[in-house]
């Protein structure tokens, strides 16, 4: 913030700049505020007496007197490590404030500490986790795990309160115990991270994927061509599986293929298990090549036993 106005006499301006330089170790806001007041006074003094230098002495003397009267600390030149000290002093109130907040929130940590200890032990012992609530470990069953967490949290809070009222006990012991809890938290966080992933993951089962239609050793079967022993292609053979269920390929009554030739029953049912499947010429009800089939050379069979 500049406090010097355009019509400030040059002498006052120079004097103020010199005073400002001498007060450079003060916090900027405090220094500006102080100098704003000094400036308006110096302007009037200059108007009254003509020269301010003769009246006020050197800027350094002025600054020293001002500092002493205002009860401000010594300049940096006087105390060599003032900057470090100042920095610490500036931060100490914040450190103290953070400490107060931490002390107020300590019970939250105490409760969390109980959970961390139980779950940490479970994670290290790999005792398993509740399937419904992966945050709860299983000790035999999940109910015992939940009870253990509750018990440990209450015990941890009680210990925390006792330590606080008894004056803390050994500082080193407290720090070491809390550090151990933080270390235990690592496998806990690891587990919780994994369980969060698992809850959204797909569980692969053998029945998860069903290949539609017929499959012959993994290769899809698009049609079936039955032949008689004497090598003749049969038509409209109805096929059933071992359970007596009709073997259909691609037959969907909801999405009928208008070009597929489908036999109908007297009750207006559709026979999708009639093979070979035949297709009409597009737009007609005429099968162009009813005897078309794959190049098959039927073997010569011995007479049946």
């Amino acid at each position, binding site marked *: 913030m500049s406090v010097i106005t355009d019509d400030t006499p040059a002498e006052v301006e120079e004097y103020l700049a010199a005073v400002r330089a001498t007060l450079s170790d003060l916090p900027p806001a405090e220094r500006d505020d102080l100098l704003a007041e000094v400036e308006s006074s110096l302007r009037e003094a200059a108007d009254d007496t003509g020269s301010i230098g003769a009246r006020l002495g050197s800027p350094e003397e002025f600054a020293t*007197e001002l500092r002493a009267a205002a009860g401000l600390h010594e300049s940096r030149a006087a105390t060599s490590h003032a900057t470090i000290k100042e920095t610490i002093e500036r931060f100490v109130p914040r450190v103290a404030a953070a400490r107060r907040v931490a002390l107020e929130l300590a019970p939250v940590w105490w409760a969390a500490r109980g959970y961390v200890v139980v779950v940490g032990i479970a994670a290290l012992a790999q005792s398993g986790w509740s399937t419904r609530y992966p945050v709860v470990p299983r000790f035999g069953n999940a109910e015992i795990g939940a009870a253990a967490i509750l018990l440990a949290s209450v015990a941890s809070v009680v210990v925390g309160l006792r330590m606080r009222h008894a004056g803390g006990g050994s500082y080193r012991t407290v720090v070491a115990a809390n550090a151990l809890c933080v270390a235990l938290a690592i496998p806990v966080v690891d587990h919780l991270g994994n369980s969060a992933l698992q809850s959204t993951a797909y569980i692969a089962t053998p029945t998860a994927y069903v290949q539609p239609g017929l499959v012959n050793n993994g290769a899809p079967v698009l049609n079936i061509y039955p032949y008689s022993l004497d090598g003749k292609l049969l038509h409209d053979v109805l096929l059933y599986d071992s359970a007596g269920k009709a073997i259909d390929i691609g037959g969907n009554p909801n999405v009928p293929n208008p070009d597929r030739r489908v036999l109908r029953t007297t009750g207006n049912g559709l026979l999708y298990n009639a093979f070979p499947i035949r297709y009409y010429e597009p737009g007609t009800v005429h099968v162009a090549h009813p005897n078309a089939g794959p190049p098959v050379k039927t073997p010569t069979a011995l007479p049946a036993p």
Partner: protein
Amino acid sequence: MAPGRQYLRYCVKRSSLLRTVDRSQLLKGALDAATLAVVAEQDGYGYDVVRRLRAAGLTDVGDASVYGTLRRLYGAGALTSYVMPSDEGPHRRYYGVTDRGRAQLAESQTIWADFSQTLTRLLETKAEVTA
């Protein structure tokens, strides 16, 4: 008389040291009281307070001492401050006395009355002796 001279030197040194400390302390305390009295009479800004102190007889008082004193009394809660626009230049920071400042002033008046009475009595006695 070496030990005697040494003692004498010690006394001189001690008294000069005490004089320096006392004087600065005394002046500081006196300036606080004087500044509070001036501002209590009527609110004023820095240079105004300097002028009024000088007009009252404290002709040697330094400008910087007064600004610093105002600042310190303000920081201690003895003075309140407000900014007023000025026709002649930048805004002026005016100071007024708070309740705490008035209490401090009353205390200073009591201390000063006791001190000055004692000193006056002492000095009058001395004057009679030398006369």
